[in-house]
């Protein structure tokens, strides 16, 4: 496939902003490490969202200011963070009870691959030289009510990340609700993909051409 066209589609910030628009007032949200963390910066005015970080904090605030870092107050990505008034600390089993028990409303995660049926692969490329590491990803996709994926539409080498079948080891099967890429927002419904919104300059045909999976309009 041809490589990513840099001139069309959304920037990473715009993608994060699109995700933020879909996070409703009062939602309990867990943001994955990396690009998903950017979403918090774009929540529209007037919406109150409570962030859960699986290492034991509900009511995570912004990243700690320089000089205000506490090595015992970190998020799941081990960044120094803060806690808002009304926050709560708890231990790991209680934290994952929130996740597994279906109490978290939305989780935003990155992806290596998402399949037509909403399968997600985001923890291992299957490369035997990599050290296997899973963290909380499998717990999140199994437990959180709604899983949003935010990812570049294609890999650096131009391959589609939205595939018929994941070739990388799965994080979870039939777990993704919506995919936000630089080209489009795509819903997963009844094990099929429906394009919800196209980025400026992206046509359905262009999108399908850059997508291995079958898309519906």
């Amino acid at each position: 496939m041809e490589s990513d066209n840099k001139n069309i589609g959304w920037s990473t910030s715009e993608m994060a902003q699109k995700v933020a628009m879909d996070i409703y007032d009062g939602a309990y949200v867990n943001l994955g490490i990396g690009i998903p963390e950017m979403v918090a910066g774009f929540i529209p005015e007037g919406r109150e969202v409570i962030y859960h970080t699986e290492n034991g904090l509900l009511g995570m605030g912004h990243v700690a200011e320089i000089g205000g870092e506490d090595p015992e107050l970190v998020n799941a990505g081990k960044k120094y963070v803060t806690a808002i008034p009304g926050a709560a600390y708890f231990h790991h089993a209680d934290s994952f009870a929130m996740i597994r028990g279906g109490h978290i409303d939305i989780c935003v995660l990155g992806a290596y691959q998402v399949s037509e049926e909403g399968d997600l692969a985001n923890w291992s490329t299957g490369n035997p030289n990599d050290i296997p590491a899973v963290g909380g990803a499998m717990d999140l996709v199994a437990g959180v009510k709604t899983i949003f994926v935010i990812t570049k539409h294609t890999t650096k080498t131009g391959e589609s990340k939205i595939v018929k079948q994941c070739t990388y080891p799965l994080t979870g099967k039939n777990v993704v609700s919506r995919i936000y890429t630089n080209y489009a927002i795509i819903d997963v419904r009844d094990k099929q993909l429906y394009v919800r919104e196209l980025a400026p300059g992206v046509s359905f045909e262009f999108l399908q051409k850059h997508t291995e999976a079958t898309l519906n309009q």
Partner: protein
Amino acid sequence: MINKIVNSAKEAVAGIFDGATVMISGFGEAGSPVELIHALVDQGAKDLTVVSNNAGSGHVGLAALIENRQVKKILCSFPRTAISVVFPELYRAGEIELELVPQGTLAERIRAGGAGVPAFYSPTTVNTPLAEGKEIREFNGRQYVMEEAIHADFALVKCSAADKYGNLIYNKTARNFGPVMCMAAKTTIVQAKQVVELGSIDPEHVVTPGIFVHRVVEISNPADESKLVAENVKYHGIRQ
């Protein structure tokens, strides 16, 4: 914006439907959400399945709910107390069902419900009549019984203080089943002796994080259920 505080017990119990499963906190009178239960008596939902450690004392609280014929079935560990009169009478008359669950199994099954664990194995009840009909399985040479999670549509819980996010703290042994019941219900309804400003509960001291709580009503002078029972008060609901 997030504000889980409602204005009255009546508002708090709104929407509890006929046939719902309702968890009720408390160990005997300690931690029993009397005002919420009485609001449910007034509200009138019937054919309820109640999950609670006991089956009520005297003619108030859970006993009043049972006496008002709103409870079809109860899951509890100890329905018999020195002053329980309502449940025994209906039970003997075959008018209320009982699922007897050991206290620790009850607590753990409720926690499992809240923690997304559909079933677990427990050594409790093995080789007793309460294990009958349940799967027995051996781990490391010892026998265990499989116990399934308990979920509820609603939980009625009493706590000492709450904020508008629904963070809760409790008082002494009135904590008992409250925290696990908050986790296991689709809609958790709490009566707090005090509603406090956001941030006044130290995040290190929160017992129930707000994510598990949906409605909070301040009942600043809750009745002492044990006193009501001792005085033989009867609650018949506001409609009678």
